[in-house]
């Protein structure tokens, strides 16, 4: 079953083309990795997919329907952003934050189940601001999955998180996809990591370089050359730390 279908997506900010003819699809159960350097258009792509940017060319279908016309489809999608610092004094417990992800009403059982999935049930009553960066990001994953979404979109979720927490994060992403059956779209700088986690790969730098399985990408020197010429190689060295 096709969950996402992006067809000929182009978006301009002023006269500048931020996205140019992007086309890819996501099937149910996929873990799609999106890689590209800073300014490649990954966040803009997600903003279009979430209906936050609407004046684009081309079409985006989520669950077979146009997201611009049916905002309620967002109820089936969880979204995780880059980590923003949370103030220590922010007066909300971990459970309060996870409950923000529920689409309606309050359901303690769902909050607890989501926290259990990310391994933070024992911190349920702690204030969110007192947790480490890695723990906070896991709480935000719990928030994103609390309402039982069919798909999870993650935009550079490990930025600013220590290496040990990053490894835990990758294991969690893998488990959410394989054990819990959640379709995942994950944007990262690190081609190596994405290549290991994902079963499909999309490389963009405003235009699309590649869409397919990671193994084909890594086996093709021309694609890797193209990728490095686009300035992505620098990111691979800067952020890469071996295969997981």
């Amino acid at each position: 079953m096709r969950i996402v279908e992006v067809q000929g997506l182009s978006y301009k900010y002023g006269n500048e083309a931020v996205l140019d003819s992007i086309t890819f699809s996501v099937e149910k159960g996929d873990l799609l990795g999106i890689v590209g350097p800073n300014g490649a258009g990954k966040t803009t792509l997600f903003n279009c997919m979430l209906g936050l940017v609407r004046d684009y060319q081309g079409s985006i279908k989520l669950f077979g329907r146009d997201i611009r016309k049916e905002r309620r489809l967002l109820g089936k999608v969880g979204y995780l952003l880059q980590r923003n610092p949370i103030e220590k004094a922010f007066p909300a417990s971990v459970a309060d934050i996870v409950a923000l992800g529920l689409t309606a009403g309050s359901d303690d059982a769902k909050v607890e189940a989501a926290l259990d999935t990310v391994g933070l049930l024992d911190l349920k009553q702690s204030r969110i601001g007192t947790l480490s960066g890695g723990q906070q990001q896991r709480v935000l994953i719990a928030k994103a999955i609390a309402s039982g979404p069919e798909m999870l979109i993650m935009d550079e979720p490990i930025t600013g998180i220590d290496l040990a927490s990053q490894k835990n994060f990758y294991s969690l992403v893998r488990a959410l996809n394989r054990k819990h059956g959640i379709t995942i779209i994950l944007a990262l700088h690190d081609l190596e990591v994405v290549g290991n986690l994902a079963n499909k790969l999309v490389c963009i730098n405003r235009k699309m370089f590649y869409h397919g399985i990671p193994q084909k990408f890594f086996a093709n020197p021309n694609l890797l050359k193209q990728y490095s010429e686009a300035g992505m190689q620098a990111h691979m060295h800067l952020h890469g730390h071996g295969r997981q």
Partner: protein
Amino acid sequence: MLELFQQGFIQNALLAGIATAIMCALVGLFLVLRKQSLFGDALAHMAFGGIALGLFLGIQPLFAAAAVAALGALGMTRLRQTGRIPADAAIAVLLSTGLALGITLVSLVQGFNTNLFSFLFGSILLVSREEALMTAAIAVAIAAPIAIHQRKLLHLAFSEEQAKASGLPAAMLDYLFIIAASIAVIVSIRLSGILLVSSLLVLPNLAAIMLGLGFKRTMLASAAISVLAVVAGVWLSYVANIAPSGAIVILLVAFFLAALAAKKP
């Protein structure tokens, strides 16, 4: 002491004061979390300009204040949403515009300075029964929807971007909340006066936040602190013959300092 609370004007003051305290605690919590603590101050200064305009034109000062403050607040929200100027700068613009308008009108016409004085410093002990009931009704009308939609407002305060991505109508909620905050400020002027109105919005919440509780308990603690300060402040003002608005705010400052001292570093 019981006799004091049996007097009509004290009962009116307490009814209006408690209603205002709860309303301001609720509205103020979200202002503090959205880093708009000075918003109440800016609105109150706009209201000062509006009150001066009302007195100058011979129309009900609080209605003029409400209109001027609401217009200013909506304009400021629009500027903030478009990102054309930083949020704190928008507050500064609002604050100085209101004050300048008020000072100019006061200098133009002498004679309404006495009236203006009660708006600047509050006059809760002069509230009539009708005014007290009206204040209570407005407080319920503002506090109830905020309490009902507290999770959406918390989501917006926690991460506007994530709230939007989850399908919340963030811009609409922003406008509705700002209008509610404007009304809360105008209603509170009777209790605390223009110069002290932001203390009702900010201090009980800062004290409550220091307690390290979850969100709902922080909200309840803030309302409780605010009500306690109002009741004790009215009593203190009567027995010590001091201005009630000053007494209430000094008590709020004391609660805040006590919470700050009790909080582990």
